[in-house]
């Protein structure tokens, strides 16, 4: 089937590539752009390891075709840290030991990044509901919830300092 050229903004940089219609967004990111931070887990939209930000919403990139993202704005885990400084969600996972093997972490970070913009001051229960699309087989989730709450507090503090 004919390839089509798509133009996608990824982590602030516009890229143009020819893709086959059947190419999934996650394969486009990993194989065409060498952004291997986004992981492939279950490939059936259950585990959330492939979560990225697409036009300001969290999506599972294993269940979106790259061709559907023509003209879109995508952010991946590679786009979180800035100038060598960890993003608050990354710092939270580091400080609160929110990972063990780390496989689910890129998806967790990207979901937390968006969730905390949707709800900057969540309760523990809201964190659990907001992160319900991401599975972790190591941690038992306790430290992931703590990490997200850490990041929430830090981001609120940054906002207040800026105001």
């Amino acid at each position, binding site marked *: 089937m004919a390839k089509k050229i798509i133009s996608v903004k990824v982590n602030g940089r516009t890229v143009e590539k020819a893709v086959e219609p059947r190419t999934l967004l996650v394969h486009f990111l990993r194989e065409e752009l060498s952004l291997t931070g986004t992981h492939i887990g279950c490939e059936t939209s259950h585990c959330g390891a492939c979560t990225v930000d697409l036009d300001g*919403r969290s*999506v599972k990139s294993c269940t979106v075709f790259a061709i559907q993202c023509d003209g879109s704005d995508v952010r991946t885990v590679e786009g979180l840290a800035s100038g060598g400084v960890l993003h608050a969600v990354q710092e939270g996972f580091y400080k609160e030991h929110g990972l063990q093997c780390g496989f689910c972490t890129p998806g967790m970070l990207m979901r937390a990044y968006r969730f905390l913009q949707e709800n900057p001051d969540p309760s523990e229960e809201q964190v659990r509901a907001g992160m*319900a699309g991401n599975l972790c087989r190591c941690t038992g989730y306790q430290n992931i919830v703590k990490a997200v709450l850490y990041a929430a507090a830090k981001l609120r503090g940054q906002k207040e300092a800026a105001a």
Partner: protein
Amino acid sequence: MIPPSFDYHAPTTVGEAVKLLSSLGGEARLLAGGHSLLPMMKLRFAQPAHLIDLSRIDALRGIREDGGEIVIGAMTVENDLLDSRLLQQKVPLLPEVVAQIADPQVRNRGTIGGDIAHGDAANDHPAVAIALDATLVLEGPKGRRSVKAENFYHGMYATELAEDEVLVEIRVPAFARGTGYAYCKLKRKTGDWAAAAAAVVMRATGDKVESVRIALTNAAPTPLRAAAAERALTGRTLGPTTLAEAAAAAMVICDPAEDLRGDREYKTAMTGEMVRRALERAAARCG
């Protein structure tokens, strides 16, 4: 897992989509949110030669009020239903249902129209649309026609939607003041389909049920309206006896498939329990 090859089409109007369907015939499938179709394509359960992506048709998105009805564009994603103030005020059953569907990421892609038109009785919107007495508007080469949700389902993956038609909107009567409602869903884990679930919309005066609609998710090859259970309650007082009668009447029509969520006996019993709980919750909200 990479899906099989296909040609991709991204029309920007419903008319264009219908034309593509007419010319491509059975070789084409409509792509809504893709969270049923893509997994099926990866497993080769579906191998369409053409995909017609509806996501660039702006006219298919949005929620508005039209007289006594709430009109929902078929490509409106679940999270937009969840956040809709209009739905929270006029059809609060829908946000209650959506909160029990899948997870935040999936709800950002999954659409109400895709969920309804896919024809899978395990999806939640089909039974809910029946309980809401929703009307489905279908557009084909000869124009639009309306079908009651109740008459839309013919069998597993078999619906009233013709090969050259697109489901464009879902029209739901706004709730009259004091309407009770509930969706009770038993599932193994977040994001799972229902082992059993029941939707209820009820009007009552004092303890007496004036009218009630009850529909069942994943209890048979199609979503079911539990008409005998409704009759067992109409004009009567809700209490242990009538609740038990309604649950029993709902269980009689169950014909579930055995799977990892349970055997037929278990699923049937749980459907009865979901009906009982949904009726109690709906009754508590009446008034």
